[in-house]
C-alpha cells in the first residue's frame, strides 16, 4: 500500500440491548473522527436489529450527523438495495447530499440475511436480480433520466452523486462496467491474497469514465487496543449468528487469535497492524481504507481511542495524512 489514500471508519451501530443513546454516540463518534482528520465515516443498515445492528435508516442518521460535522464524508456500507424502493432511495440520497454539501458516499449491497428478505416480502434467492433492477432504477433517477411517460424527473437533482456510488459484491467486472466504486472486506473462507486478486480484476475490468477512475474501499477490522472479555464474547456471539444462517462455516471454538486471523481482523501493535495492511490491496489516491474498530458492546470512549491510534500511529506509517494537515500544507504551497 502506498500513501495518499482516504481514511474512513465504519460503524455498524451495534448495541446488545437497545437504548436511544446508540444514535447519539454514533453522532459523537463522527465528530471525534472528523477532529482526528478522518476523511469519511460509514454506517451499516440493519433491519429488525439483526446482528444487534440498531440502524435501519442510515440516511436519516447521516442527515442528523451532517448538521454536527462540516467536512467528513457520509457513507453507507451498506444499504440493502433489494429491500429499498429505488426511487425513494434516490430522493433521500439526493436530499441528504444537498443537506451535507455533497458529502454522500452511497454504498450498496445485495444483503444476505434470509429472515429480512421474508419480512420485506422478497425472495432471498432473487436478491441479485432485485439488486440489479433497483440499481438500474437508482442510477437512472440520479442521472436525471425521465421517470414516466410525462418526463417527470428526480427532484432535487444532486450533481455528482451518481459518481459516488459503491457496490459490495464479488461480481467486480459488473461493478467496473457500471463505473462504480468497489467495497471489499476480508472473506474468512478465502486465502489472504484473494482480496488482492479481486482488486486487480476490478481495476483491469474498469471501463468507466476516465474522469472518475476505479476506486476501492477496503473494509478492515482493526483492534489496536488490548483484548477485553467483552470483545471476545462479542466475536463469539457474532460467529454463532453467522454460522446459524450459513454465512460462516469455520469452527466456533478455538484459539481467539486464530479466530481473529480467520476473520481477517488486524490487532496488536500499530506496527503489526500496519504490516498487515501493507499485505492487502494497494490503495491509491482514489481509494479508501475503512477501519471497523467496534464490536457489539464496545464503549464509545474505547472506539474513539482506537480511532486515535489508527489516525496517529497506523495510517501515517502507510503514508496517510489527516485532512487538516493536508489542507494547511496545500494552502501554504499556494
Amino acid at each position: 500500500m502506498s500513501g495518499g489514500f482516504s481514511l474512513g471508519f465504519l460503524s455498524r451501530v451495534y448495541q446488545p440491548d437497545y437504548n436511544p443513546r446508540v444514535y447519539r454516540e454514533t453522532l459523537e463518534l463522527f465528530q471525534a473522527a472528523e477532529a482526528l482528520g478522518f476523511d469519511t465515516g460509514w454506517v451499516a443498515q440493519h433491519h429488525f436489529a439483526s446482528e444487534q445492528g440498531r440502524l435501519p435508516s442510515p440516511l436519516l442518521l447521516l442527515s442528523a450527523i451532517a448538521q454536527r460535522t462540516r467536512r467528513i464524508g457520509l457513507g453507507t456500507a451498506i444499504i440493502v438495495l433489494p429491500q429499498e424502493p429505488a426511487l425513494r432511495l434516490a430522493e433521500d440520497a439526493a436530499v441528504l447530499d444537498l443537506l451535507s454539501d455533497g458529502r454522500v458516499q452511497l454504498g450498496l449491497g445485495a444483503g444476505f440475511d434470509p429472515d429480512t428478505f421474508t419480512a420485506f416480502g422478497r425472495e432471498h434467492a432473487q436478491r441479485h436480480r432485485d439488486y440489479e433492477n433497483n440499481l438500474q432504477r437508482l442510477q437512472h433517477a440520479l442521472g436525471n433520466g425521465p421517470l414516466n411517460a410525462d418526463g417527470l424527473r428526480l427532484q432535487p437533482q444532486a450533481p455528482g452523486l451518481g459518481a459516488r456510488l459503491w457496490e459490495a459484491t464479488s461480481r467486480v467486472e459488473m461493478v467496473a462496467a457500471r463505473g462504480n466504486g468497489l467495497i471489499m472486506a476480508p472473506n474468512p473462507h478465502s486465502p489472504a491474497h484473494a482480496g488482492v486478486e479481486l482488486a486487480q480484476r476490478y481495476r483491469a475490468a474498469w471501463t468507466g469514465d476516465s474522469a472518475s477512475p476505479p476506486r476501492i474501499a477496503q473494509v478492515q477490522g482493526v483492534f489496536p487496543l488490548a483484548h477485553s472479555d467483552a470483545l471476545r464474547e462479542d466475536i463469539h456471539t457474532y460467529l454463532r449468528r453467522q454460522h446459524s444462517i450459513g454465512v460462516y462455516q469455520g469452527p466456533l471454538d478455538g484459539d481467539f487469535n486464530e479466530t481473529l486471523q480467520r476473520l481477517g481482523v488486524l490487532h496488536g501493535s500499530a506496527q503489526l497492524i500496519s504490516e498487515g495492511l501493507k499485505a492487502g490491496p494497494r490503495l491509491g489516491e482514489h481509494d479508501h481504507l475503512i477501519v471497523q474498530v467496534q464490536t457489539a458492546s464496545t464503549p464509545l470512549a474505547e472506539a474513539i481511542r482506537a480511532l486515535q491510534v489508527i489516525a496517529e500511529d497506523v495510517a501515517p506509517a502507510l503514508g496517510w495524512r489527516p485532512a487538516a494537515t493536508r489542507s494547511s500544507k496545500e494552502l501554504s504551497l499556494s
Partner: protein
Amino acid sequence: MTAATGRPPFKLGFLTHAFGDNPQQVYQDLLEQFDVAEALGYDGGWIAQHHLSNGFGSLPSPLLALAAVAVRTRHIELGTAVSVLPFEDPLRLAEDASVLDQLSAGRVQLGLGSGGANLDSFSAFERDAGQRQQRFAEDQQRLQALLDGQPLHPDSPLTVQPPAPGLAKRLWHSHGSVEGARYAATQGNGLLLGTATHDPLTVQKPLADAYLKAWNDPTRTPRIGVVRAVFPAADRATAQAELAVDIERHVPRLQREGLIEQAADLQEHLRLLNVHHGHPEEVLHSLRNDPSLLPYADYLIVVVQAESSTQAQVLQRLQVIAQRIAPALGWQPRATQSQTTVG
C-alpha cells in the same frame, strides 16, 4: 393550562411546502424556519412531501429533513402533512419514523395522505392511482400495527426496530370525504383539515362533525389539525400585493380541477382559497369567522409561504402570528406555558 374552559388552548404549528428554485437554499431556509419557530414558542413544524419535478414543492424526504431539524432543536414537534403513503413501503416508513422519533425524543407527528395531489406521479412510482384509497387503508393499518410494536407477520418473532413508544398514537389522516373522516376516527387517528381548496363551511365543517361523531375510543380524545393560509402584513393592500403573483398563477389549475368555476379578481380568489390576510386585526377577525377553525382546532397549522415569498417575509409572518395573532385567540407559547407551570 388556565381555567377550566372545557377546551384546552390549541397548539400552534406551521406548515411548509418547501417552495423555491434552488433546493439547497430551500433546505437551509427550512432549517432556519424551524429554529425561529422554536424560539417563538411554536408547538410544531410540519413539512409537506412533494415528489419529482412537477413544480410544486422541492422536498421529497420530509423525515430526512426533520432528522436534521431534530439535532438543532429541543422542543418543537416534527410533523409531516402529509407523507404520500402510496409511494412508501410501510415497513421502511415505519423504520424511518421510528428512528426519527428516537432521535427527537418522541417529537414526531406523522400525517398520511393517499396521494390525491400527486396523481401525475403514480406511474413513476409504479403504482395504480385507481387503487389508492384501498391501498391507503391497507398501508396505514400495516404502518400503525408495526409502529405499535406488533410482529411483522402473525408467525414472525420480528418487530420494527428501534421501538417508538407512543408513535402509533401520533398519526394523522388527510381526507377530502366524509367517509374518510369517519375512517380516521375509527382508526383512532387525528384528522388534518384544510387545503385551501376545500371550502371551510360546506366541505370542512361536515368532515369535522362526521369525524367527531364517529370517534368511539372513550380513553382518548379526538384531535383535529386545521391547516390555514395566514398572511399578515402592514395592511390589506400590502398583503394582497405580496400574494398576487402566486395566487394568479394557480387560477388556471384550480379552474381545471373544478375548484374555481371561473376566473374573477384577486379579492375573490383570496376568498375562495380562504387566505386569511391583511393587518393583524383583520387576520384575527377573519380567523374568528372561519366556520371550521376555532370551534374545532386542536392544532392550528399556519401556511405562511407562497412560491415567491422571501425568507424574510416567512420569518416575519411567523413572528407576527406567534406574538400578535395566536395569543389573541387563546394560544400560549411554550416558554410562557412552562413559566406559568413553574410560577
